[in-house]
């Protein structure tokens, strides 16, 4: 989310229209990211009894689904609104990976180190976000 926001606002030179970008970004996140997270959580809990690997399938599958969509977002030299549509689908299809990932940590890590493990997870994501922001530019 951070990378795409920085990228889009600079690539499309929307510095002077940050209010418009803010409202569009909010709509995309609310209509795409929020349902994605909730649906992934529900699916994970529902099918966990059928297949104990449901969480890992969801976490990896949703993360991988983001690859082509991010490629489209960053490599398509279209207009602003076509990128917004791609960003919406990226949010809708890919942002549900976090809840199953953390549920796996909560399930397998010893109670003494559970919060530490979550901390390591967030450390990894923060580092990845920082590096990718620099790489994308």
């Amino acid at each position, binding site marked *: 989310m951070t990378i795409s926001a920085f990228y889009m606002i600079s690539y499309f030179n929307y510095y002077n229209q940050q209010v418009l970008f803010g*409202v569009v970004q*909010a709509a995309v996140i*609310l209509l795409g990211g929020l349902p994605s997270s909730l649906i992934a959580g529900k699916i994970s809990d529902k099918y966990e009894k059928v297949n104990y690997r449901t969480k890992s399938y969801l976490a990896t599958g949703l993360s991988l689904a983001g690859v082509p969509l991010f490629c489209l977002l960053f490599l398509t030299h279209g207009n602003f609104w076509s990128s917004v549509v791609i960003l919406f689908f990226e949010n809708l299809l890919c942002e549900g990976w976090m809840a199953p990932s953390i549920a796996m940590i909560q399930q397998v890590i010893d109670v003494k180190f*559970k919060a530490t493990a979550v*901390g390591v997870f*967030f450390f990894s994501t923060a580092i990845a976000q920082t590096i990718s922001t620099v790489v994308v530019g």
Partner: protein
Amino acid sequence: MVFGTLVLFTGSLADRLNRRFLLGTCALLWSGTSIATAYSNTFVMICIFRMLLGLFESATAPSAYSLIADYFPPETRTTANAYFAGCIFVGTALSSVSTVMVGNLGWSLTYLIVGIYGCFAAMLVLIFIQEPPRGRYDVAKV
């Protein structure tokens, strides 16, 4: 960077201290940094308060997810995580819309409003959240 680095240490802290207290206190303190930012008049002061925000915010996720693990059984835990992660999306969306507030009210007043709201939310955490016994739903451990 501050958040990313310190979350390793605050995670360990959440394994040792009362998570309800840690979560509420850090939320109160980071909201305090937003209020302090509203009254900042130099770039250095804003930088310092933003770094403090990262410090206090880094204690949130480990404490919250550890609490969720002890509040909800494994059968409904991913859904509970999803609601918490969903609220992060709501917060991110609200932060995007804050550009409207900045445009109408100015950045200083926007920080003040966000900080006051955060203090109110932190007080709710300290009043209503209970500290559950650690690992009460744990069966298999690694």
